[in-house]
C-alpha cells in the first residue's frame, strides 16, 4: 500500500497495464504533456498526440480496438464527447450486436468531468446518465484513488467499451490547469478523502458494476458517486445530530448499476435520497427510481441533482451543484416525514 493522489493512482494503473500488455495505447490531445510520465516511459507510439478531431480519433479508437489494440482514448473534458458522440452511440456500442456477438470493442474512453471551480456550463458537466443510456456501454465514476486505479484496471481488462470519468475536483492537475489553482488566490471545496489515499501496488481491480457501502445506517439510504459522495459524507454529522442514521452508498458504476445493493439498502431503510451531480432529468436518478419500483419497493424518494445549465458565477454554481446544505435539508425533510 502506498499513498497516492487520485491522478497518480490512475497513472499507476495505466503504467501497470501498459507494462503488462503492449497493446494498451493512449491517444488524445496533449497527452504527451498530460501523461508525461507514461510518455517518457513508453514513447510516442504508445502515448500519441492527436489533432483536435475527437470524432475522428474516438472513431479511430473503435477501429483500433477491433483490430487488436486496447486503446485509452482521452476526451479531455466529457463535455466534448458531444462532437464525437457517434463513435459511442452508433459504432462502439453496436459492434458486438451487429457482428452477431463475434466481435467486440475493448475501448476505454477517459474524460474529466464535473464542476466546482468556476469554468462554466460547457466544461463542468457530468453527462454520465446520458452516456449510460447507450445499451452496451459501461460508465464508471470513482470517488477515491484506490477505486480510480482499480476501476481503470477493470476498464482496461473489459472487452467492451467503458467510459472512465475522473472528477476534476479530485484530480490536482486539472484543478491546476482549469481552475488556476496555482495562483493561490482561489480555493476550492476539494474533498480530502477523495484526492489522496492508500493504493495497492499493483492496484487491486475494482469490478465494474459493484457499488460500496461507505457508511452504514438504517433510517435512510443515500446513493451517490464522485464528488457528491463526499458531500453526502460531510452531511452525515449534521444528520446524526438530529438522530438520523443514513446509509451512504458509493455507486462507483453508473452502468451497469449495482441493482442488488440498491434494492437491499432501500428495502432496509425505506427511504432513498439520490445525490447526483449530473442533470436531474432522464438520467441516473430516474433510473434508480425505476430499479426500485421494478423490484416492487415502495419507498420515500427524493433527489438532489443539478437542475439546469451550470452557472459560471461561483455563488450560483455552488447552489446549482449538490452541496452539503441541500443534501442535509433533503435528508432531513425525508426522515421527518
Amino acid at each position, binding site marked *: 500500500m502506498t499513498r497516492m493522489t487520485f491522478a497518480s493512482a490512475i497513472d499507476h494503473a495505466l503504467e501497470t497495464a501498459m507494462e503488462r500488455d503492449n*497493446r494498451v*495505447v493512449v491517444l488524445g490531445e496533449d497527452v504527451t504533456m498530460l501523461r508525461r510520465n507514461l510518455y517518457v516511459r513508453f514513447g510516442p*507510439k504508445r502515448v*500519441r498526440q*492527436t*489533432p483536435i*478531431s475527437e*470524432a*475522428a*480519433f*474516438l*472513431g*479511430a*479508437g*473503435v*477501429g*483500433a*480496438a*477491433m*483490430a*487488436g*489494440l486496447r486503446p485509452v482514448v482521452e476526451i479531455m473534458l466529457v463535455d466534448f464527447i458531444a462532437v464525437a458522440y*457517434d*463513435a459511442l452511440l*452508433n*459504432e462502439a456500442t*453496436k*459492434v458486438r*450486436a*451487429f*457482428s*452477431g*456477438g*463475434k*466481435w467486440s470493442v475493448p475501448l476505454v474512453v477517459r474524460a474529466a468531468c464535473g464542476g466546482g471551480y468556476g469554468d462554466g456550463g460547457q466544461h463542468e458537466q457530468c453527462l454520465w446518465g446520458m452516456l449510460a443510456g447507450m445499451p452496451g456501454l459501461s460508465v464508471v465514476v470513482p470517488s477515491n484513488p484506490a477505486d480510480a486505479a482499480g476501476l481503470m484496471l477493470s476498464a482496461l481488462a473489459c472487452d467492451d467499451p467503458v467510459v472512465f470519468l475522473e472528477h476534476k475536483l479530485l484530480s490536482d492537475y486539472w484543478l491546476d490547469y482549469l481552475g488556476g489553482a496555482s495562483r493561490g488566490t482561489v480555493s476550492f471545496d476539494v474533498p480530502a478523502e477523495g484526492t489522496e489515499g492508500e493504493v495497492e501496488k499493483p492496484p487491486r481491480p475494482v469490478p465494474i458494476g459493484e457499488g460500496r457501502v461507505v457508511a452504514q445506517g438504517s433510517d435512510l439510504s443515500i446513493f451517490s458517486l464522485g464528488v457528491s459522495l463526499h458531500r453526502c459524507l460531510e452531511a452525515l454529522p449534521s444528520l446524526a445530530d438530529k438522530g438520523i442514521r443514513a446509509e451512504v452508498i458509493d455507486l462507483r458504476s453508473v452502468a451497469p448499476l449495482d441493482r442488488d445493493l440498491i434494492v437491499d439498502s432501500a428495502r432496509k431503510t425505506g427511504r432513498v435520497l439520490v445525490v447526483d451531480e449530473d442533470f436531474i432529468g432522464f438520467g441516473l436518478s430516474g433510473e434508480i427510481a425505476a430499479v426500485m419500483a421494478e423490484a416492487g419497493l415502495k419507498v420515500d424518494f427524493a433527489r438532489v441533482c443539478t437542475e439546469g445549465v451550470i452557472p459560471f458565477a461561483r455563488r450560483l454554481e455552488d447552489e446549482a451543484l449538490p452541496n452539503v446544505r441541500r443534501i442535509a435539508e433533503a435528508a432531513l425533510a425525508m426522515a421527518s416525514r
Partner: protein
Amino acid sequence: MMKPDIERLYRQMARMRFFEEAQADLWDRGLIPGEMHLGIGEEAVVAGVLDHLEEGDALALDHRSTPPLVARGVDLASMLLEVMGEEEGLCRGMGGHMHLFSREHLAGSSGIVGSSAPLGAGFALAAQCLSPGAVAFSFFGDGAANQGLVLESLNLASAWKLPQVFVCKDNRWAITTRTRSVTGGCLARRAASFGMPAYRVDGTQVEKVWVAAGKAVRRARAGRGPSFILASCPRMEGHFLGDPLLRVYREPLKQTVEIGPPLARAMLSKPLAALIQRCGYLGNIGRTIATLGGERYLLAIDPLRRGAKLLSEEARARIESEAKSEVAEAVSRAMERRGRND
C-alpha cells in the same frame, strides 16, 4: 510497369454484379426487409482497389458494403442469409446489409455516412502498431466527403502517416442531391490539401483504378502514409432499391397520379403571386428527376461492359458463367437453409 490481371479483375466484377442482382431479386420478393443499397456501377472501383489487398489488410465500408465483401471472399451464402435476417447469417441476423462485419476478414461497415473513414483510420493505426505493412481501405461516397468524420480523418491519417487508402466512389449523387450543388471545390484537391497524394480516375475503367490503387497501396505498405482515390462511377440502380426518383422516371404516368395533385395544389395555393417562380421550382424538381434518370439510362457507362472489352469473348463468357453459378449456388444454399428455418 506492372500490369493488372484482367481476368481476375473481371471475375471479381462479375461476382459482385451477379451477387447484387441476386440481392435485388430477393429484395423484390420481399425476402430482404428495409433499405437495400446496391453497389451496381461501382464494381470496377472495388475490384481495381481490392486486387491489391493482402491477407491482414482491413476493410472499412459504408452502406454499399456487399460488393467489397464479395471481392474479399466472404462466404456468399452467409451474406445472403444475413440480409434475409437468418440466424445462420454472417452476423446472426443482427446486422443486416448496412452493418456487415467479418472479424476474420477484418472488415466492418456502418450506415452512418462517413464513419468508414475513422473506422479505417483505427484499423490503420492498429496495423501501424501491430503489423507494419498491412493496409486499411476506407470506402465512401462523394456525399460523405462533406461529412466532418471524413474530413477529420483525412487530416488524422496524414498527420499520423497511417497506412490507409481512402476510396471515394463518386457517383455524383447523394440520394436525391447532386453532390456538386452542395460541395465547394474539387474533392481530389480537397484531399490533397490535407497532405496526401490524391488520384482522380475514371472508375468505370478497372485497369485505371488498379494502377492508381497500386500506387496508393505501395505507399501505405512502405509506411509513407495515406492516399486518396477519387473514382467516378455511375449510379445505375438509384440510391436504394425502389428509389422513388427512379420510379417517377420509369413509370411517369403512374407516379404522377400520386405525386402530381399535391404538387399542383402547392403550385396553385393562394396567394398566387409568385406563380412564375413556382413554375421554375417545379421545373427544378422535374430536371433533377430527368437528370438522374437520364444518367441511369442513357449516359451510364457500365463498368462491366467496359471491362468485357478487354477480354476475349471466350474468357468473358467463361468467367461470367463461373461467377453466375457461384452466385446461384450461394442463393440456393441460402434459400435451402432459410427454408429449413421456416
